[in-house]
């Protein structure tokens, strides 16, 4: 940990201010906590990715011949749980959000720095329990824990449920911290309407985290209690209702997907603006859209249950609301496109990722329209069509946005530039690998291949082979940034405060920043994304 970067000899920054493991494990600096999270989630990304590779290798052939059926069921369960709870949900908020939100509003840290550290420790406790669960065989309930399978059959349910229960509190505390920070710690002149859209996105996400995650915690607790004490909450033989679980679970897990995607949308807004050298088109609508998505996202959960045994009329209500929540997302795509109009566009690595995000998120979002259509949903739900849909959004959208943000803010975080050639190459490999992996799955789904199948009917093989080929290409694409970003920490070109010429308070401090970000509290006198009159290099302060 000590020699994490070769620091600029004269200048003190948050990385070289103090060395030693204690200075990292007991830090309250939001930037160091962000890096702690970066290490943790990257570790879990590769674990979850490894499970995915095994899944795709098994699916090369129709027969179940690589692993046993139970093992396969554990692989897809652990892939889902690890990726959702230990990578996707924390990725942008806990890494990029932690690092940048205080700087973007001119604050020296989050509102509750020690709670921030506690969030990371809760994540790590959950992580240890999850690792224990994996090492003792892994759960095999599917990431969705449906009852009565999870309460009466399945294995390792308590371990998995407990780990997610704990890591949920990490998410809740981060959300709480962000809400208070944005309300109370904005520098003078940083009004709500001047906030970068990345801050708006994390704010909306934080609301969902605080309101939704407790429901998941309670639901998982009920599953554990039923499993241990046979309470009869979900078991029909004891008077319970298995559908109750689904309502409770999806009440959180649908908003959870917006926790995953909204911060990514915030990243894309920052990048599209910077690399078009233009203010974001329709700022007010963009800010309102993330709030609308957060609110409407709580109203659509039963679109996961159209064939579960709910009434036709309930189905109608949730289908209608699902179409409503699609509108603000569509608005965002149109506004990003319009931002590029008459811009001055550079094809830097972050911008390539942003292009990829817009394209793949559009495709994923459009297939959401297919799924929200009741009559069509009946045929494609529980098939690979759904798998493709959510991977387009989560991997094609969210992971790409995360990588975009990592590259965009890498100079600020590390003080170094990554090698541009490798950055662009990795972005393109990821784009190609991703599409080859997941596009065939739409076709597989409509053809009728169900999800979570260890063995499958032979006519589905060719599309599965294409998908596995794509997955190996994608794996290479993901390994590259790991390697060159690490390389750049020692050998990368030294970055100045604002290598991209972007507008934003975070670009008006040193790269890397000092522990308290700014020498004095800045005073903001410009609108967000004011590329017409970019503010001075020096942060203006009150004199």
């Amino acid at each position, binding site marked *: 940990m000590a020699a994490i970067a070769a620091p600029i000899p004269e200048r003190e920054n948050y990385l070289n201010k103090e060395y030693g493991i204690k200075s990292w494990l007991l830090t309250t600096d939001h930037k160091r906590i962000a890096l702690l999270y970066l290490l943790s989630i990257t570790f879990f990304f590769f674990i979850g990715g490894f499970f995915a590779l095994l899944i795709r290798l098994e699916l090369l052939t129709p027969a179940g011949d690589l692993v046993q059926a*139970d093992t396969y*069921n554990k692989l897809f369960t652990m892939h889902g749980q690890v990726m959702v709870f230990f990578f996707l949900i924390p990725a942008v908020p806990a890494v990029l959000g932690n690092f940048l939100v205080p700087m973007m509003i001119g604050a020296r840290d989050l509102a509750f720095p020690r709670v921030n550290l506690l969030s990371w420790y809760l994540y790590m406790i959950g992580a240890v329990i999850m690792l224990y669960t994996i090492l003792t065989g892994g759960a095999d309930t599917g990431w969705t824990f*449906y*009852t*009565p*399978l999870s309460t*009466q*059959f399945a294995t390792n349910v308590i371990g998995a449920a407990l780990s997610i229960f704990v890591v949920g509190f990490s998410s809740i505390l981060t959300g709480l911290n962000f809400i208070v920070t944005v309300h109370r710690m904005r520098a003078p002149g940083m009004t709500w309407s001047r906030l970068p859209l990345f801050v708006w996105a994390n704010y909306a996400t934080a609301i969902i985290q605080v309101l939704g995650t407790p429901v998941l915690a309670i639901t998982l607790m009920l599953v554990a209690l039923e499993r241990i004490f046979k309470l009869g909450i979900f078991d*029909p*033989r004891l008077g319970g*209702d298995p559908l109750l679980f689904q309502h409770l679970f999806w009440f959180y897990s649908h908003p959870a997907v917006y926790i995953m995607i909204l911060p990514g949308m915030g990243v894309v807004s920052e990048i599209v603006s910077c690399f078009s*050298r*233009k*203010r974001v*088109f*329709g*700022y007010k609508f963009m800010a309102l859209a993330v709030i609308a998505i957060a609110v409407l996202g709580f109203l659509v959960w039963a679109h996961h249950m159209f*064939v*579960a*045994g709910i009434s*036709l009329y309930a189905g109608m209500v949730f*289908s209608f609301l699902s*179409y*409503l929540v699609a*509108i603000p997302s569509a*608005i965002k*795509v*149109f*506004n990003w*496109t*319009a931002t*590029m*109009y*008459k*811009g*001055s*566009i*550079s*094809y830097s690595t972050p911008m390539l990722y942003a*292009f990829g995000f*817009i*394209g793949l998120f559009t*495709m994923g979002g*459009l297939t959401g*329209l*297919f799924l929200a*259509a*009741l*009559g*069509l949903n009946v*045929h494609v*739900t529980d098939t690979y069509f759904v798998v493709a849909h959510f991977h387009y959004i989560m991997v094609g959208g969210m992971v790409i946005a995360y990588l975009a943000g990592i590259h965009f803010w890498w100079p600020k975080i590390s003080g170094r530039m990554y090698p541009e050639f490798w950055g662009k190459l990795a972005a393109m490999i990821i784009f190609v690998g991703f599409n080859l992996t997941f596009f065939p799955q739409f076709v597989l789904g*409509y*053809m009728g291949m*169900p*999800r*979570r*199948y260890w*063995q499958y*009917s032979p006519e589905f093989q060719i599309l599965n082979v294409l998908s596995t080929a794509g997955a190996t290409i994608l794996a290479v694409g993901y390994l590259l940034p790991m390697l060159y970003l690490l390389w750049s920490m020692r050998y990368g070109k030294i970055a100045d405060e604002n290598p991209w010429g972007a507008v934003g308070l975070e670009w008006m401090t040193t790269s890397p920043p000092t522990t308290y970000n700014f020498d004095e509290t800045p005073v903001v006198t410009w609108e967000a994304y004011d590329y017409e009159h970019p503010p001075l290099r020096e942060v203006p302060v009150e004199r």
Partner: protein
Amino acid sequence: MFENLPLWPARASTLAGNVDALYIFLLILSGFMCLAIFSMITVFAVRYRRRAGVEAEQIEGSNALEFTWTFIPLGIFLVIFVWGTIVYFQGRTPPQGAAEIYTVAKQWMWKFQHIEGQREINELHVPVGRDVRMIMTSQDVIHSFYVPAFRVKQDVLPGRYTVAWFHATKPGTYHLFCAEYCGTMHSGMVGSVVVMEPAQYEAWLSGGGASGSLAETGQGIFQSLGCSTCHRMDTQGRGPNLTGVFGKPVLLEDGRTVTADENYVRESILNPGAKVVSGFKPIMPTFQGLVSEEQLNALVAYVKSLAQPPAGAAGTPNLKPPTSQTPKTTK
């Protein structure tokens, strides 16, 4: 059209074409939207690429554009919503008079009971050109009955019946998949639906089923479990006369009125205290654990058969609607 393109399964039911039509519409719409957005982005990225001396033009926004691209998509989405709802209601409202097949799903197989008495495991024979209604329950966890060629899917739950229906249009053999993850051999819980010409189907029906129709089996269980002791065919029983009950409204002790459907009959056997008929005492014992899912299906089929007393049946009492039954038990 395009039956041989590996883009969709065979269309073998009346519903399939409707579902595919909506799908194709959405494909075209999405294709158009992707083309529009991607080409605009490409054109902008090329036309407005960074060049020395050329500044970006700062455009704040346009309310007119925002409203346009809010309300036009909203309109299109509402059209899709309505279309999808119509197809959903069609696909999930079984017509009257459909032939009925009881299904019990268990880890990891499908068990079918035809009304005529045939039992099948993992293979389901149905006639072409007839409405078929599946009355399904699970013995353990949630499963899902999925026939891609029919575009039909319905989760199968423990503790209650769920229903799916279809009208097969093409003879052939089609995949049946379990579509709700149910444990170790979820991917092995597969089978076939064999759609037969009517004549062949009749022949197949008469060839199997040794033990009589499902309702006859149910009658046997009704007697052997002692149900007929209280549920007599006259007005003297401690329990309601079940003749003509099925499908009719029932007035309960607490004032509610419910319809005596399959779930009502099943619940009354397993949890009789849940809905006590008006004028009767809650003294029926539960048969939970004493009767299997298949036996329950047979009992339900039997009670259903009492709705229409067979022509010329001797001694069948007058079918008074149960709501007007007066209490007859005396303390």
